[in-house]
């Protein structure tokens, strides 16, 4: 099971709210955890948005202070106070940091995760991954997803199959340490252990032992080798084995790929600059007119949409969640 959806808006708008409503219609596909990969607007140069989870929620401010020290140690600096939000009923906190940093993202990542009990969910100029246990409605209410203004994004609700119910195992997964790249996945990889071993031997880093995270790191490696997004997606269909339909987002594009049988469905819909996709058509019908034409993705398909071609410049919108 698992339900995922993606959205590209014609211009910057309430992408968080729309994805939350779409994902809410697929609660039956995965009630364990929900996550969002949202893209805000063009940032100031050199600024990186870091989304983390601090395991010790009660001491979150103290831990955030230690993170700031580590950021300073690698020649970065916080652009304002960390935005720490406690999880409702949980003992952990999600934290959003704005960092001015021009060095390699891997250096910043290592510095932040060097602080004990800090897990980085995403880093990007525009990407922000917000994920937690609970339904789309609960996670959105807890972490201000509805207020997020942006151009595009992904959402995922998870039915845990291959690993435990846990915040870090939730989707979307960030393609660490590649800025702005995220994936959501519906399926299981059967050659996960072999690929994970080979990728680890090449020095690639993982946060979890979840099979879906492997897809994001795989894509990051392909992109770092200079391959196009479409090429990376195509290669993944032969390199990955198992049942999979996954969505991929970058600052400029949204793509999808399916295995050669496409048993995990994905419905696509696009009209007048807006692109919507979801595991089930009913998610799309929550927010879009019924006259919109939809189609199922065919087996072994790769589709990539260029956000710039579908989205226009923003009008009076901003990316800071309130």
């Amino acid at each position, binding site marked *: 099971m698992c339900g995922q959806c993606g959205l590209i808006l014609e211009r910057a708008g309430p992408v968080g709210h*729309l994805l939350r409503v779409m994902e809410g219609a697929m609660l039956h596909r995965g009630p364990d955890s929900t996550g969002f990969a949202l893209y805000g607007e063009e940032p100031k140069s050199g600024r990186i948005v870091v989304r983390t989870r601090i395991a010790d929620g009660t001491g979150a401010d103290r831990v955030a202070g230690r993170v700031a020290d580590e950021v300073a140690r690698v020649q970065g600096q916080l652009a304002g106070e960390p935005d720490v939000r406690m999880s409702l009923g949980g003992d952990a906190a999600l934290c959003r940091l704005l960092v001015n940093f021009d060095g390699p993202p891997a250096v910043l990542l290592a510095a932040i995760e060097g602080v004990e009990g800090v897990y980085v969910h995403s880093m990007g100029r525009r990407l922000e991954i917000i994920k937690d246990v609970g339904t789309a409605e609960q996670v959105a209410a807890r972490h201000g997803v509805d207020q997020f203004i942006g151009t595009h994004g992904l959402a995922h609700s998870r039915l845990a199959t291959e690993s435990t119910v846990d915040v870090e195992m939730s989707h979307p997964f960030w393609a660490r340490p590649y800025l702005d790249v995220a994936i959501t996945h519906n399926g299981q990889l059967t050659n996960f252990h072999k690929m994970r071993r080979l990728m680890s031997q090449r020095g690639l880093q993982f946060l979890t032992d979840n099979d879906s995270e492997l897809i994001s790191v795989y894509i990051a490696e392909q992109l770092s080798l200079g391959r196009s997004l479409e090429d990376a997606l195509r290669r993944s269909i032969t390199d990955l084995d198992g049942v999979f339909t996954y969505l991929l987002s970058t600052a400029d594009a949204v793509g999808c790929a399916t295995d050669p049988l496409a048993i995990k*469905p994905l419905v696509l819909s696009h009209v007048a600059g807006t692109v919507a996709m979801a595991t*089930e058509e*009913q998610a*799309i019908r929550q*927010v879009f007119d*019924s006259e919109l034409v939809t189609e199922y993705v065919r*087996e072994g398909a790769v589709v990539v949409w260029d956000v710039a071609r579908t989205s226009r410049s923003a009008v009076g919108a901003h990316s800071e969640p309130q």
Partner: protein
Amino acid sequence: MNRSDSAVRTWPGVPADAVHLDADGLDAREFNRKLQELAQVHDLLAVDNPRARHNLGIGLETGAAHIHFLGSVGYYCGGFNAGAEITVHGNAGWGLGEAMAAGQITVRGSTAWSAGAGMRGGTIVITGDAGPRTGIAMKGGNILVAGTVGFMSGFMAHQGKLVALGGAGDALGASMYEGRIFVAGPVAGLGADAIERDLDGVDLEELRRDLAQAGLAWPAQPLHKIEAEGRLWYFDKHDARIWRNI
């Protein structure tokens, strides 16, 4: 980007005197109970706001009304249909008309996987394309598709007739027991034990009648008839290779 109100739109082919039922706010169980009740007393029904939700129009009884769904439906629409005529003005998700016994389901759009799975009777008409495994394990009735059918359509069919006028994906008719598949247009490949046979006069007469009744045009490209060769019916060690191909 507004939630459309299907009641304020005009839908071609839906009579104005149809009795409307709004699916919004009803869970599948409540909705189906109400629909079954209305179908006992009215001949013509229209369902507003189906919003591609699952399990709509399940278990409709013999002699029930003509029901129009104004928009796409989700999975398993028209399952266990025992005689109702259903028209979907949009797409249908997985398992359309699963295990139906009688009646007709017309989809004015496309269908996902496994339309007509295990159906025993009645007719399914799809004006667009049908997904993989259309007519899987069908035990009777007709499935008529104006466009293509996806891979492994007719898989393990027992009886009945599957017609695809726009071509078919790979492994067409794989491991079918009996039944007939008629296909016009490109076929990616036949499945295990599926074989092409010549159409006879009875086939042609039947197809002309079926397509005319469904309002589908006779295909421009020639029709091919696919049946089981029968080599999987009994195990023969000399034929072991075909078993490995399943």
